[in-house]
């Protein structure tokens, strides 16, 4: 029982068991028994996987890959899970953010057993997504993660949440149908569903399957891009992330948009056409980073501003990811690119989770989400019983991290990204996006500045629960720890991602040149912020903010993206 082949199902099975316990709590238990069952379920689903991750680390760290077939079927018939360095790393990302966000939800809501159950199913689906090795199982896992996330978004009960959830459901369900069409195409061509089976089948075909294979692969990539929210197919994200409950926003932004990306890398790296597509997606990512930040800068709703930053930051991740897929992770350059991409994904999950939670606490306390209206939030938080300004400090940790200020973790991952991408086209777009990021967080941090006139916002009644502080401090601590142990973490990520033992590139994280660059970026951001604060700048931002959006645009951009992908790969 204790051999690794059986253990690797635990990250999927434990959260599911926890979800079952939470459902039991909802169905049959009352009073304190219900609470005990629900919390026990969450403990099984969110805490025990950490023990599993610690237990398998010695096997994984030496380049070991564990495979297991569900139900002990013959290999090739049953569903196979593969647990390797990439799975390990992505699971650390999943469990660190989901654990913190669940603790936050205890204090800030939605506080009920059915929320915990659906939440745990989402965690289970995400773990399965990164371990899966066949395209149909990937489809099922993505759908499972999707369906649970629609429920969680709608669970906030805000007026727009149902509509946001509905339009996310509509676009992602229709894109997943095209994913299925891609699966169909590849199955027709090769008669296989596993990643390796498809890759081998395509290799044995004349000219690698030709147009049919390329179209199938392009449909799959485009469908997953909708989930990852790369521009131009990111239009669903701001509403969904802004209107979800705060804890869910943190998970959606931190985890849900990244896991499909790294799962997709497994497929694309096996096929020449997929590696070619990586280059195009890398460019799309770099543009996403820049345009996302321009849109973010123009927002006035605090959570919507953060949601647009998620698009922008995923652009950073995708641009390095695409370049890594293009050159292949077996080369040292590719391994370094993939490591930098993952590192930013992980650190973004931490600081964006922290930002969503601390802004969530702030807007709940003050009852005001408008960045231009809300002032003096620090004082309002203090009158709500916060003697040490935890929320305020945590917000600033997150804001400094995302603006790449040393010694926080965002600085480290962005330095790693600019090191591996230096000299390329992406580098300049990402640097420009960094200026915008600094500017928009100067804008957002103004909500904590002291108020000039007397207070007009009344704070919500009651004290902020302790679990809110615990989760914020946990993520804040991770942000600082990630920044201080920069070189060690980066070396570990490179080692885990390249089983062949590629050399770890020497990145001087705290060199004076890199520090100077961070300083100059912030200075440029300050100038940009002052420009947008002028009358003309404000008018321009309003124009950007109020541009029309609709479901039609999303669908058209999805078709266009798929078509461009096909042309690029042919």
């Amino acid at each position, binding site marked *: 029982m204790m051999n690794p082949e059986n253990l690797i199902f635990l990250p999927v099975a434990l959260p599911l068991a926890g979800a079952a316990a939470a459902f039991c709590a909802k169905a049959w238990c009352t009073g304190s028994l219900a609470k005990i069952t629900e919390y026990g379920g969450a403990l099984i689903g969110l805490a025990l996987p950490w023990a599993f991750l610690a237990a398998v680390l010695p096997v994984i760290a030496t380049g070991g890959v564990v495979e297991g077939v569900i139900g002990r079927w013959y290999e090739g018939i049953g569903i196979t899970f593969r647990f390797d360095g990439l799975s390990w790393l992505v699971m650390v990302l999943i469990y660190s953010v989901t654990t913190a966000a669940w603790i936050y939800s205890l204090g800030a809501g939605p506080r009920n057993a059915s929320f915990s159950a659906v939440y745990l199913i989402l965690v289970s689906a995400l773990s399965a997504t990164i371990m899966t090795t066949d395209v*149909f199982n990937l*489809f*099922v896992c993505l*759908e499972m993660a999707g*369906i649970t996330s*629609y*429920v969680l978004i*709608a669970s906030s009960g805000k*007026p727009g949440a*149902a*509509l946001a*959830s*509905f339009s996310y*459901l*509509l676009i992602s*369900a*229709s894109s997943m*149908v095209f994913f*299925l*069409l891609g*699966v*169909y195409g590849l*199955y*027709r061509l090769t008669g296989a*569903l596993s990643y390796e089976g498809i890759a081998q089948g395509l290799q044995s075909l004349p000219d690698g399957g030709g147009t049919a294979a390329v179209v199938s692969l392009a449909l799959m990539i485009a469908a997953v891009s909708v989930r990852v929210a790369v521009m131009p197919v990111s239009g669903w994200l701001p509403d969904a992330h802004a209107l979800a409950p705060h804890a869910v926003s943190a998970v959606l932004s931190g985890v849900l948009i990244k896991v499909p990306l790294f799962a997709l890398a497994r497929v694309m790296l096996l096929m020449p056409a997929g590696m070619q597509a990586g280059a195009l997606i890398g460019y799309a990512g770099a543009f996403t980073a820049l345009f996302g930040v321009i849109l973010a800068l123009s927002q006035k709703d605090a959570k919507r501003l953060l949601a647009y930053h998620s698009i922008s930051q995923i652009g950073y991740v995708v641009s390095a990811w695409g370049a890594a897929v293009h050159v292949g992770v077996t080369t040292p350059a590719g391994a370094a690119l993939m490591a930098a991409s993952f590192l930013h994904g992980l650190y973004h999950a931490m600081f964006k989770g922290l930002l969503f939670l601390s802004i969530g606490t702030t807007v709940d306390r003050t009852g005001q989400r408008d960045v231009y209206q809300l002032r003096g939030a620090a004082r309002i938080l203090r009158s709500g019983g916060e003697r040490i300004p935890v929320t305020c400090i945590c917000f600033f940790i997150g804001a400094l991290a995302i603006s790449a200020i040393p010694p926080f973790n965002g600085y480290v991952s962005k330095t790693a990204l600019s090191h591996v991408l230096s000299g390329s086209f992406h580098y300049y777009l990402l640097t420009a996006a960094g200026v915008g990021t600094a500017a928009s967080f100067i804008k957002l941090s103004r909500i904590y500045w002291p108020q000039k006139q007397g207070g007009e916002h009344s704070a919500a009644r009651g004290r902020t629960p302790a679990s809110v502080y615990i989760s914020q401090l946990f993520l804040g601590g991770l942000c600082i720890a990630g920044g201080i142990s920069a070189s060690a973490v980066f070396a570990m990520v490179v080692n885990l991602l390249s089983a062949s033992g590629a050399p770890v590139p020497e990145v001087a994280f705290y060199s004076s040149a890199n520090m100077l660059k961070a300083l100059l970026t912030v200075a440029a951001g300050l100038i940009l912020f002052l420009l947008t604060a002028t009358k003309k700048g404000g008018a321009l931002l309003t124009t950007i903010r109020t541009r029309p959006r609709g*479901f*039609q645009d999303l*669908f058209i951009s999805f078709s266009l993206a798929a078509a461009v992908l096909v042309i690029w790969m042919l």
Partner: protein
Amino acid sequence: MMMLIIFVGIFGLITSDNLIKKIMCLSIIENTMILNFIRAGFREEAAAPFLITPDAVTVDPIPQALMLTAIVIGVCFNALAVACIVRLHHTTGTILVSDIHEL
């Protein structure tokens, strides 16, 4: 033929203003895809793939197994989407997208 039905679904998905109709169009696209898969595994004069002798000619069982899963997922989608619509109707009193955006 399949592509034609899919385009009917997509057309309806984009042009219809009614949320229920959007869901119906999504179902049309999904079911077309399911038919498509089943057709891919079909062979003339072949038996159903269960309780067979080893040398019997059967249809390909894999697409059928996959599509059973896909049908279940489709049902989940429809149930969830209709639940969302009911909720929207409670809060806004309408199921037309244009009316909801005006509010």
